[in-house]
């Protein structure tokens, strides 16, 4: 591959000339990962496409159907993931040649410019598995950009869905829903901190030693960081309820509900590291919840899940009430049960992890 890069590097100028007339270069899958597409820079055809029209243009996958990732895509999993109507998620990190990820304590990994984080949302098992959308988060010189790509019915191509879209499907829970593909701005709504787009998921504390080790042995992470307070594995029934609950809230809510996040004005801070019970909602009155409050007085009333707004909003499917506002069209019943149990077991003024 290295040689191929060198070759294309040398030939780029000539190719730019010869391909200039071909407006849609994305019709030809590039035989390598297209760093220029990730970076939003001039491609071999002489064009700059800030928002490539097809997923294929990046060359992340060896086949048009996106089933076979390039070997330089490193798969990763999260301990406690964001829930998206029960979708299966295939996650990959791509870091360009010669670049490294740096750890930043237990928090979000620091990805170099040129990084792409790729996440495909799929429903169905085995042969019946269908890709719905692939979201691509790219680190460019001027910051991160998030773009949604929607798979066609034939499962042969994913095209840019700037304005998002809706698709009818049945969730693994057997619920028929209108699944929502977010638009580009909605990507940013969740992926925003202090007005800039940032990754959410890949925090060291939410990645297992095995996953971090995988990045390291791929030569892409300079040392596995020490994690004193790892988030538990979702589904680990031996983990304390409070830890599971706080991990879920961190992964599903805290990207907005934190200082500098999209819902900062609520004053609610659901990050894993937040230790102040009031900040996570204990006996906290709503600010701008409107009818979302559902007649309840506080976000969390210790010992009383039925009087806790957080449960009410997680358990609703209605726009204007449902939380999270984006990214789900059905209720995560398992999570609602967990949060109910956590609040029921909570002694007044409690609510800290571990």
């Amino acid at each position, binding site marked *: 591959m290295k040689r191929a890069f060198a070759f294309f590097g040398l030939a780029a100028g000539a190719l730019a000339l010869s391909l200039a007339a071909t407006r849609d270069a994305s019709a030809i899958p590039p035989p390598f990962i297209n760093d220029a597409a990730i970076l939003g820079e001039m491609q071999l055809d002489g064009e*700059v496409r800030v928002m490539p029209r097809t997923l294929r243009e990046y060359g992340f996958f060896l086949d048009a159907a996106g089933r076979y990732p390039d070997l330089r895509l490193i798969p990763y999993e999260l301990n406690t993931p964001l829930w998206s109507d029960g979708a299966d998620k295939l996650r990959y990190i791509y870091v360009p040649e010669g670049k490294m990820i740096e750890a930043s304590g237990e928090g979000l990994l620091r990805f170099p410019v040129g990084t792409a984080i790729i996440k495909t949302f799929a429903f169905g098992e085995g042969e019946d598995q269908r890709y719905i959308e692939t979201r691509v988060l790219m680190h460019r010189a001027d910051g991160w950009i998030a773009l949604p790509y929607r798979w066609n019915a034939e499962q042969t191509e994913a095209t840019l869905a*700037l304005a998002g879209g809706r698709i009818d499907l049945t969730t693994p829970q057997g619920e028929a829903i209108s699944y929502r593909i977010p638009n580009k701005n909605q990507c940013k709504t969740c992926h925003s901190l202090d007005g800039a787009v940032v990754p959410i998921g890949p925090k060291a504390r939410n990645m297992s030693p095995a996953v971090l080790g995988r990045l390291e042995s791929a030569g892409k992470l300079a040392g596995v960081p020490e994690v004193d307070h790892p988030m538990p594995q979702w589904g680990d029934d031996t983990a304390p309820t409070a830890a599971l609950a706080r991990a879920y809230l961190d992964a599903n809510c805290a990207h907005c509900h934190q200082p500098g996040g999209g819902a*900062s004005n609520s004053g609610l801070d659901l990050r894993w590291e937040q230790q102040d019970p009031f900040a996570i909602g204990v006996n906290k009155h709503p600010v*701008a919840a*409107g009818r979302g409050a559902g007649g309840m007085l506080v976000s969390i009333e210790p010992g009383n899940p039925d009087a806790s*707004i957080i449960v009410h909003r997680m358990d609703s499917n209605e726009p204007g009430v449902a939380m999270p506002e984006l990214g789900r069209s059905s209720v995560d019943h398992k999570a609602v049960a967990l949060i109910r149990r956590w609040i029921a077991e909570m002694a007044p003024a409690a609510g800290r992890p571990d």
Partner: protein
Amino acid sequence: MIRLTLAAALLASSAPLLAETHTITAGDGAQERLQETLILAEPGDEIVLEAGRYVLTDGLSLDVDGVTVRGAGMDGTVLDFTTQAGAGEGLLVTSDNVTLRDFALENPKGDGIKSKGADNIVYYRIRVTWTNGPDASNGAYGIYPVESTGVLVDGAKVTGASDAGIYVGQSNLITVRNSIAEANVAGIEIENSRNALVEHNIATRNTGGILVFDLPGLPVMGGGNVIVANNLVVANDTPNFAPPGNIVAGVRRGTGIMVMANDNVLIEDNIIDENPTAPIMVIAYTMGFEDERYNPLPRDVVVGNNLYGTGGDDPQLDGADMLLAAFGGALPPVLWDGLGSIYAVEGTAGWSLNLTEQGKGLGAANPSPLAAPVPAAEFDRSGIGAPAELDERIG
């Protein structure tokens, strides 16, 4: 793609010389067409929404600085969210220097238009209506700028919000004027904000007309420097239909202008009529709190000359009958809880609950006629209101 390079240069110089106009029509695919245009717009561009009814299933959002979204009038261009299936508001704006004008939103499931961290925003002749009238299942806020510096709301009309029609929160340099707030729980609410001018509005048939609040536990606190002047605050007599749990659910039916906490508030030259609980109410934050940064008292609230009609004649207060009997059939126009400090021009009739402690309820109330000192000095109006450049945008 040359345009992109140019756009970058223009961004740098912030002089949108090549501003484009994008025209959108109602009909099939309006959701995608409009949203794509909102995403692809460049700073300085104008998006024109031709007259028609746009049936939308998802919230819209705008994240590009300096864009104008212009409809064909608040009755001509209607964004209809009756069948909205997702998102927490009809339109979300997260960029600066945006102008929204001459269109309407109907029946958004959550809030109408929310602008967050969107500095120097103009809402001009925008209508947000929940068409079924007052209903707890309506969305919370019609027009909802928050965490922003520079907000101008002019000529807006909001009806049916289950919280506040026009709500400005955690913001600075604000003007709300020439607008109509009707049949909301709160007509116009200025919350945890500074330097706000609320003038020449009509607030009617709400539960409470105009509210100026400061609440604890929020990222931005210390509301104050607010002028409420030349408003028509009439017949705010709709029973409170806010979902319980929200702060406005505690607003009594028939409240005209209400100040809770805040410092330096001027209430002057308003016409206040037929508000059966209290034409003007000035009180401390009523609940307990633990936030050390927070001052729960109203300080230096000035009641200037206002024109008072009837009011205070059917108060939603404990012991209303006794109070009415004591005051001769109607309570005087200004109700103060006795906490903090209030000034009133000579001849202002009022009464005080004479509370001595904040957050302890009304148990210790010991009502008596108001004895407020006259204002010591001219109210300092400097720095209050939206920046003048926002006026120029709608000139």
